Every structure is written in structure tokens, then in C-alpha cells.
């Protein structure tokens, strides 16, 4: 914009026209001439109209003067204007044009009468100052480098030198916009858990710039174990994020393996894939996917979970005293939480490692919809033949392999409701041929196994009001197990399953909240079975055992109702009494489980908590079926009590200590009398037991550079199964220590380690053997049940990650090396043919898993 400074000078001039009449009057009134009116006041410019010269006019000097002659009328207007002394064009024209628009206070005579007056006017036209630079508009997005996730609510500051010239914040999509003077300035942002942004930016006047600023995540890999939801319904509940699951050393990024590093989880033998929580039997604990049970936890060999972590949000781990929402389990629970496919654009990942290869794609479709899918296949069938000796007594028609997949569609139009469809499944397959019998001549020929399941899960969440919320999910599932071992033994299962869960929560006031719901299952099972059946706790040659054969088609119903009240009489203190009633059609029994939890945050950072409750489950269907077992069994019971203390020690360091005791009763056990008495039930509910222990979890997170934890469990798990006396349970591990941590080395490098020191499992020694002449097999003669213990287990695992972050994607190279010292940990004994000689059976040797993962 031009600015014109004008400084016209009005000169007292002789007014020629005015003087002429005055001379004439002197001639007409010689006697008494009236006084000659004189010009008392010259015209006075009211408002200066600046002279506008065309933009870009070159001024010969900073100021140009044009002298004008102006005839100012009696009413103050400029009648005529002319140049007296010009300055050339376009200055003269501009001056005339401006002058004609002048408005004067007219000149007046001494009588006060306005009169026309001609004046000389010096109009100064100054060269306009350079226009101020146009502001620059800078629009940008703060995104996490690689994942391109928006970084919302981050203050953004623009400084010119030390002077702050603009501030703003990113919105929910990570977007910000500032308007700043063109020039050179520093753009700064410091989002938590991310690399700081300090960028020198030069902008031209009026420039509009839109850019994405990709910031390295600095804290993602170092998130420590986080606590659960605001209303905690368990004495001990730990949650691992998907990133933690991927990075835990020694777990090879498996969904379930990572949580088994927490206190309360026993170390499962290599290849077993068992879930032993707080000393309970593997079948006593359940794993859920968004509160709906996963039919099969692991692929063959227990190396990989069937639910790949591509759409994993977190894994919740509750080793005992879980809430009334869950049932049909007398041990603990794990709930796998699913993340929704991303709404912002299309993304994906690919992961290739020694075990398997997986791909994942996801993206938003608009209208609140997003869609994603993942698929994974194992390499085992490719790798295994390389390691098989050429003279091995085994050949594969179909080498062991697995597939699993997840498809997820989410509709979330707003925060108050969400619909999600999850279709996931798994398939394991192998066909092998044993060219000659091994130890037992009945184990020969074809070994065939196909295990698969497919679940279609629909979920709908709706916040009906500020007080009322509902969560409902429905699962239609199909599961198939087809196994054939040699010519004699087979087990085939076809299971069609329907499961409905609906939970309603109503908050009466901040002090009172009621939750309740329905959790029902119905399944149709078709079973054909011909397997060896043992009435004892120790392994025996199949050929030495009687066979159980049956063709069964059965329906199993298990509706359950649950309700829980939360009462918070004072701040930071709450009591949650609850009750769950479950029907078990297999045994025609109701089970009513009252449960109670109290939690008190004594001072900020110090929490005392305690719980007691009954947990009941139906016995294994094989034990309760009328053909293969005893339908008059009772529900297996576990009365659980636990007390805990949570203490924040310093920032980033916290300690959880939990003590627990479990009384087991009505446990279904084999009845040895049935071995020779056809009328005796195969199983009875006479088993009892007790489990007690102490769990410690010390979590450490030092800034963004280190995170890890120390988990220690002391526990004893004892069983009394008549006719035996009290003996340690198979997975009684009195001492279980896990220390793990990951350190961010910078430049995308991170290194982590895990060290485990665990008591050896009990085992029953073989003291002799008997030759069964009918089969040529030696049958072991066992000593006292679980009277001996295997050697202490210890192993060190290391993991190194290197992340390359590109503009739109990241590439991670990782090496997860298990048992780096190649320690030969004993997992059992291998006996010679007549059990007179034995050698330790060792577990996993050193196993480096090299993988490459790309995400975009």
C-alpha cells in the first residue's frame, strides 16, 4: 500500500481579481467611500487528496514538487487547476487530478463574505515507501515418521531470533497453521515421546506453504507396562501394548509369549504351548479375543499364537481373581484387544522371518468405515527338511505348516458408537509317514493332523447416555480337528459354536455403578475318537493302555449371567461385589460364583487392593461325556484370594506385590478302579489342591531410553488326587524370575535382553520296567508321583532392532536370538527301550530369528 505524505504550503497571495473591484469602488464613491473589504482569510484546505502516481513510477528524487494554480470557488471547490511549475508526467497529471478533488474552507473577506480566490499550491508528492512484505502462511502436519500417525495437541512456536512471532497447536489430525512475516524463522514443536522439531524456515513474502513434518517416535518402543483401565476390576492386571509385544526379547513378536514374562505365568516347556497361570492346569485358564474365547491358542509346537499381532492393540493379563465378566475358568485369563484399521489413508506392513511371513493392509473408506486384513503363513515346511537327517525314520507328504488370517471392518461414525466385524481363523496341517515303528509298534505308518478354526465375531458398542453404555458381541465359529496316528488311533472333532455376550453399565452417580450382562455359549460337537485312555498321571506306551472309542454328537449349552456393583464411598476407595451364575449342560449343574474386590489408593501412588472369589468350570468334556467319562461330575472349583500393593517409587519406577492363595476342590480326576471295573466311573470329582504364592513386578522406565521389568513369582502348586497323597503339580515352579529390558541406542538402534531363571518342573522317576510281551514294549514302573525335579532352567535371550525411517515408511531389521549361550536346559528325560538308561531331554538350542519388517 502506498503511503503519501503531503505537505502543501498555502501562501498568502495577492488576489488579483479581488483587488480590481476595489479600484473601481474607489472611483464611484469619492465622498465617503465605505471601507474597502479586504481578504481576511485565504482558502484553507480541508483535506488533502494525495496524488496517485501509477504503481512502479520511478521518482527522480524522494520528493517531487508540483506547483499548481488553483481557482477556489466561494463554496470551497476547485474550479480550475493548472500547472505553474510541473515535475513532468505522471506527476503533473496526478497532481492536477488530486487537486481537482480538493475541498477548501473558502477564502473570506473582512466582511466575512466567502469569495473565490486563486491560490498557488505546492503539492509535494513523495516516493512511496517500500510496501511491507506480505505475510507468509505456513500450514503443516506433525506426523509420526514411518507410521504417519498424526501427533495431536502439540504446541507449535515460530521464533525470529529470540522473539516469538506466532504460536499455535496441532489439531486432532496433527494439523497447524500460522501466519508469519516472510523471512527466516525457527519452527519448533516438542511432542511427547517424539523427536523434537526445530526447523529453520525461509519464506518469501506472501508465500503459502503446506508441508508434513515427520517426527521420529522416541518413546513407542519404551512404553512400559501400563496399568489397566480407570476402574480396575482385578487385583493384578497388566497390559502390554502391541509395540511391547513386538519388542520383548526372546518372544519373537508373538502375541501371547510376551505376557508370559509377567509374574504368575509359569514357563511352559519348549514345544508345549501351554498356558499355566498361578499354578493352575493348562486347561483352567482361558484366552479371549475381545472377551470372546479363542478356540485354539497356538499353532503346532507352541511357537506361534494363532492370532497374529498385525491388528493387536494390547494384551491384558490377569493371572487370577478376575472379574465376574469372565467365567468357565478356574485359573486366569488373557484378553487380546484388537485395534481398528486406520482411518487415515491406506497403510500396511510385511514381516518376514525364519518362522513365517505375514502381510497386512488397512485403510479408511470414509463415512466412519475402515477395513483391514492380515495373512500369515509359516516357513516350517520349507525349513524343516533342511534339518532332518537323511536317514530319519520320517518323511512328510505334507510338512507341518500353518496359516492364520484376520479381516476387520470397523464403522465408528462418532465416539458414541462402534460396530466391528472380525473374521479370523487358523489352520495347521501335516501329513507324515513313519517308515518303521519307533518305541511303540502301534505308532507307525501315517501321522495326519489338521487343526483349524474360523470365527466370525461381530461387536457393537453404544454409549446410550452419559450414564448408560452397552457392549455386545456375537461369535459364530467353526472348529475342526482331524488327527490320525498310525492305523489305530484317531480323534476327530467338528464343533459349531455360537457365543453371545452383552454387557450393560449404568452409572447412578460417581459413587455407584452397576454392570451386568449375559455371556452364553452353545455348541454342537461331533466327535469320533479311538485313543488310548490312561487312568494315571504319567505317560505310558499307547499300546499298553485300554482304548476309548466313541462316536458322539452332542450339544453343549452354557448360559451365564453376571452382575457387579461398584461402590466408591470415599474418593480413591472402591468396593466391587459381584456374582456370576453359570449353567453347564454337560454335567447338568449351575455354578454360582460370588466375587469381591476392594481397592484403595491410600495416597497418590500407593494402592492397596484385595479380592476373594469363587471360580468354577465344567470338567473337560472328555471327562464329563457319558460315553467317555462321567456326566455326574461336579463343577471344578477354585476359591481364590489375593491381596496386593502397588507403589510408585519414583517417576518411572513402580512396584507391585501380590500374594495369593487358591483352594482347589471337586477336581475331576481319573478313577483307577475303572481300569478293571466296568461299572466304576472313569472320573470322579475327588481331586483337591492348594496353590499359594507371592508375585513381584518391578517396572522401570527411564525416560525414553530404557524400559523393562523384573518379574518374580514364588509359588507352590500342590494336588491331592486319590489314591495318591499330596504331590507337587506338574508345573509347580517354586521360583520364577524374569528380568528383561530394552535400551534405545539412538539412530534407530535398540537392544534388549531377557534373562530367566526358573525352577525345574517336577517329574516322576521311573524305577523299573515290565516287558509287555504282546506288543514287545517295555512299560515303565513309576516311583512316587512328581517326587523328583528337573534341573533349574536358565536362559539368556537377546534382541537387536534397527529401524530405518523413510519419509513414508519404516523398515525394521531385527534379530531375536533365544538362548544365546546355547544352554542345554533339561525339559525331561529320554529313556532307552527298557528304561534302564536315560539321558536329559534338552529344550530349545540357540535360535537366532532374523526378521525384516516394513510398515507404511
Amino acid at each position, binding site marked *: 500500500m502506498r503511503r503519501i505524505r503531503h505537505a502543501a504550503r498555502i501562501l498568502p497571495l495577492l488576489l488579483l481579481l479581488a483587488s480590481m473591484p476595489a479600484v473601481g469602488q474607489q472611483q464611484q464613491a469619492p465622498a465617503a467611500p465605505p471601507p474597502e473589504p479586504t481578504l481576511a482569510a485565504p482558502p484553507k484546505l480541508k483535506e488533502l487528496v494525495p496524488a496517485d502516481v501509477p504503481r512502479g513510477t520511478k521518482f527522480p528524487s524522494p520528493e517531487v514538487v508540483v506547483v499548481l494554480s488553483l481557482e477556489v470557488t466561494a463554496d470551497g471547490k476547485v474550479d480550475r487547476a493548472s500547472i505553474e511549475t510541473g515535475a513532468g508526467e505522471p506527476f503533473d497529471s496526478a497532481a492536477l487530478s488530486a487537486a481537482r478533488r480538493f475541498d477548501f474552507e473558502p477564502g473570506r473577506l473582512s466582511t466575512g463574505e466567502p469569495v473565490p480566490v486563486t491560490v498557488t499550491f505546492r503539492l509535494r508528492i513523495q516516493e512511496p515507501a517500500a510496501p511491507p512484505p506480505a505475510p507468509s502462511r505456513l500450514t503443516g502436519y506433525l506426523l509420526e515418521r514411518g507410521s504417519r500417525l498424526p501427533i495431536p495437541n502439540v504446541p507449535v512456536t515460530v521464533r525470529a531470533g529470540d522473539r516469538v512471532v506466532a504460536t499455535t497447536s496441532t489439531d486432532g489430525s496433527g494439523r497447524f497453521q500460522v501466519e508469519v512475516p516472510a523471512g527466516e524463522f525457527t519452527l519448533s514443536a516438542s511432542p511427547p515421546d517424539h523427536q523434537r522439531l526445530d526447523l529453520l524456515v525461509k519464506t518469501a513474502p506472501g508465500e503459502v506453504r503446506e508441508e508434513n513434518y515427520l517426527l521420529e517416535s522416541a518413546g513407542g518402543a519404551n512404553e512400559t507396562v501400563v496399568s489397566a483401565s480407570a476402574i480396575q476390576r482385578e487385583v493384578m492386571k497388566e497390559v502390554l501394548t502391541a509395540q511391547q509385544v513386538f519388542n520383548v526379547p526372546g518372544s519373537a513378536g508373538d502375541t501371547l509369549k510376551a505376557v508370559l514374562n509377567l509374574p504368575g505365568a509359569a514357563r511352559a516347556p519348549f514345544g508345549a504351548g501351554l498356558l499355566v497361570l498361578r499354578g493352575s492346569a493348562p486347561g483352567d485358564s482361558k484366552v479371549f479375543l475381545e472377551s470372546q474365547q479363542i478356540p485354539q491358542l497356538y499353532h503346532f509346537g507352541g511357537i506361534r499364537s494363532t492370532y497374529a499381532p498385525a491388528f493387536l492393540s494390547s494384551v491384558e493379563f490377569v493371572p487370577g481373581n478376575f472379574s465376574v465378566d469372565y467365567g468357565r475358568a478356574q485359573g486366569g485369563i488373557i484378553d487380546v484387544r484388537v485395534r481398528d484399521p486406520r482411518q487415515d489413508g491406506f497403510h500396511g506392513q510385511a514381516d518376514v522371518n525364519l518362522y513365517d511371513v505375514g502381510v497386512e493392509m488397512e485403510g479408511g473408506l470414509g463415512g466412519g468405515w475402515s477395513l483391514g486384513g492380515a495373512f500369515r503363513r509359516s516357513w516350517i515346511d520349507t525349513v524343516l527338511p533342511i534339518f532332518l537327517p537323511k536317514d530319519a525314520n520320517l518323511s512328510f507328504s505334507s510338512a507341518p505348516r500353518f496359516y492364520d488370517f484376520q479381516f476387520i471392518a470397523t464403522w465408528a461414525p462418532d465416539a458414541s458408537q462402534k460396530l466391528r466385524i472380525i473374521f479370523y481363523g487358523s489352520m495347521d496341517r501335516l501329513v507324515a509317514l513313519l517308515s518303521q515303528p519307533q518305541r511303540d509298534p502301534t505308532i507307525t505308518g501315517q501321522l495326519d493332523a489338521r487343526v483349524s478354526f474360523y470365527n466370525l465375531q461381530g461387536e457393537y458398542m453404544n454409549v446410550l447416555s452419559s450414564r448408560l453404555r452397552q457392549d455386545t458381541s456375537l461369535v459364530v465359529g467353526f472348529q475342526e480337528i482331524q488327527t490320525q496316528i498310525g492305523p489305530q488311533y484317531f480323534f476327530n472333532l467338528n464343533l459349531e459354536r455360537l457365543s453371545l455376550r452383552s454387557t450393560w453399565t449404568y452409572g447412578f452417580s460417581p459413587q455407584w455403578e452397576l454392570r451386568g450382562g449375559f455371556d452364553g455359549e452353545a455348541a454342537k460337537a461331533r466327535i469320533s475318537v479311538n485313543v488310548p485312555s490312561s487312568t494315571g498321571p504319567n505317560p505310558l506306551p499307547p499300546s499298553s493302555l485300554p482304548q476309548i472309542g466313541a462316536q458322539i454328537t452332542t450339544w453343549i449349552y452354557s448360559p451365564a449371567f453376571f452382575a457387579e456393583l461398584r461402590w466408591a464411598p470415599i474418593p480413591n476407595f472402591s468396593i466391587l461385589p459381584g456374582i456370576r451364575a453359570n449353567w453347564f449342560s454337560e454335567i447338568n449343574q449351575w455354578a454360582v460364583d460370588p466375587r469381591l474386590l476392594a481397592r484403595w489408593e491410600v495416597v497418590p501412588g500407593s494402592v492397596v487392593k484385595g479380592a476373594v472369589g469363587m471360580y468354577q468350570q465344567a470338567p473337560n468334556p472328555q471327562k464329563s461325556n457319558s460315553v467317555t467319562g462321567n456326566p455326574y461330575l461336579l463343577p471344578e472349583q477354585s476359591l481364590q484370594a489375593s491381596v496386593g500393593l502397588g507403589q510408585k517409587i519414583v517417576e518411572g519406577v513402580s512396584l507391585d506385590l501380590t500374594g495369593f492363595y487358591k483352594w482347589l476342590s471337586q477336581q475331576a480326576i481319573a478313577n483307577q478302579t475303572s*481300569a*478293571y471295573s466296568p461299572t466304576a466311573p472313569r472320573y470322579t470329582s475327588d481331586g483337591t489342591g492348594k496353590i499359594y504364592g507371592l508375585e513381584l513386578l518391578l517396572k522401570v522406565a527411564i525416560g525414553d531410553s530404557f524400559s523393562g521389568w523384573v518379574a518374580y513369582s514364588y509359588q507352590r502348586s500342590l494336588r491331592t488326587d486319590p489314591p495318591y497323597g499330596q504331590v507337587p503339580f506338574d508345573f509347580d515352579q517354586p521360583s520364577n524370575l524374569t528380568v528383561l529390558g530394552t535400551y534405545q541406542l539412538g539412530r534407530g538402534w535398540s537392544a534388549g535382553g531377557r534373562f530367566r531363571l526358573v525352577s525345574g518342573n517336577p517329574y516322576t522317576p521311573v524305577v523299573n520296567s515290565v516287558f509287555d510281551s504282546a506288543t514287545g514294549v517295555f512299560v515303565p514302573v513309576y516311583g512316587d508321583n512328581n517326587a523328583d525335579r528337573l534341573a533349574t532352567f536358565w536362559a539368556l535371550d537377546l534382541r537387536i532392532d534397527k529401524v530405518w525411517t523413510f519419509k513414508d515408511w519404516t523398515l525394521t531389521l531385527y534379530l531375536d536370538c533365544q538362548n544365546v549361550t546355547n544352554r542345554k536346559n533339561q525339559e525331561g528325560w529320554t529313556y532307552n527301550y527298557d528304561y534302564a538308561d536315560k539321558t536329559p531331554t534338552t529344550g530349545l538350542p540357540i535360535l537366532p530369528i532374523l526378521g525384516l519388517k516394513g510398515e507404511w
Partner: protein
Amino acid sequence: MNRTLAVPLLAILLAVAGCKNDFSPQSDLLDLRVLALVASPLDVTPSAGTVTIRPFSYVPPGSPTPLVEWTFCPLSVGAVTAYACAIPACETSSLDPAEHWLRVGSDGTLTASPAAIIDGKCPQLRLAAAQGAFQSVFRFRITIGSETRDAILQLPVWLLPPPSGWEPNLPPVILEVRIGGRPAASPPPLPVNGALPVELIIDPASVQTYVDAAGVAQTETMTGYYYTDAGTFDKGVLTGTDTTSQLQGIGIPATRTSAQVWVVALDLRGGQAVAGPFTVPIGP
């Protein structure tokens, strides 16, 4: 139901796939061993009355005369308790001077009348006779010095006549054993560090069909066990009616001039047949 069946299956695969150890194979006869208990008949029905069981044992050369004991238990708890007798009072031993139920011949062959033993020692079991056959256990114990070996044979003992349509179990019939392509009675020498094929031919007509516990018709799996006291077999056990294992002349002491070879055929239901010992000269 049995969702963990895949786990033992994989364990089997791992066990057989590549896990080697230094144990002596079952086919190597290094010390006292029971090879077979050959019974006749294999089902003790009221009409049969008496059963004879002949033991086949390997006694290392130069050993003192072994002590032999037979016991009979009409009702056993099974393999879980190493075939302990469910009702100890019903068990009888050939070494019990107060008992006379078990007669043992000079070659160790047992002759017994299970029904008579039950009637004499456990008459209460008659009450359960209608439920079918008892899986009775005959236990053979052989002792040389401090070395004792136990072997059992379970035989169905019928106190009442079997139902109509019942088919008795018959033992496998060994048609021929050939060593090095010749009749086993005149085998060629076993070359040191060489091998000789040992072929067991079982009469296919002796392979029976039966209905298993699941009600499924099954065909007997004929199984051949190979034993030797010098050298070793590359495969100690094979299934089929015509199987061949290689007798390998390795690890044979220089003082040995011959090897003794036995072959045992099993139908895995109690039927057993033994061929041997065959003397195989050890050649250069």
C-alpha cells in the same frame, strides 16, 4: 474336546525325526532279556480250560541257572500301576509253597487253569462274569543273581462262554525266516563291517480282522522284532507280513565266531511266534 492331541503328535514327530542318542537298541541282546511269552490258546474260554505259556528268554552265555517265577492275577489295574493286582488276595505265585495253581515245567513253561484259580481264590469275581472276559495278567519273572526281568502277558479269561459270533484270536504263523537269502538254518557268514538281510515271512492267512473298542473293524498289524547277540540290526522292529532287516557286522568282538539271531512275530493282541535262535557264522 481333546484339543491338545496335536502337541503329543508333534512330540512324536520331533522324537522320531532327528533325536539321536547313544542307547543300545532293543535288538541288541547284551544281558538277560525276555523275548516272548507264547500262549496257547490266546483266549481262555470255559471250553479251553487250561492255558500254557512258554517263555523265550535270552540268557547270556555262562550265566548260572536262572530262577523263574510265574504269577497270575485275574484282574489288574493295568499299565498305570505296572499291572498290579487289583485284588492282591486273588494273585497267586508259582513260588508260593502254599499255592498249587501254577505248574511250571523244566523249560519254564506255565500251565494253568485261570477259571479254577478264580473259583478257588476269588470266587466273588464270578459275579462279574457276565460282563465279559477279564483281562488277566500272567507275569513271568526271571532272575539271575541280582538281575531280574519282568514280563507280562494279558489274556482274556472267559468265565462264561463268549457271545455268539465271537472269533478267537489266533497267533501269527511264521512261514519262513531267511538270512542272507538262504534258509535261516544255514545262513551265509556275516561279514565284519558288512551286512546280511534277515527276512521274516509271516503267513498272511494268519492276519485276522477284529473290532476295536471304538467299534471300528481293524486288521491286525503284524510286527516283527529282530534280536541278535552280536552285531546289530539296522531296524529292530518292522511291521508287515514280509519284512527284512539288515544284520550289520559292526561292533563285534574279535573273539566272537558266530551270532545268535531270534525273530519274534507279534499280532499286537497277544499272539506271538518265535523263530530262532539261528546261528550265523561271522566271516572275515
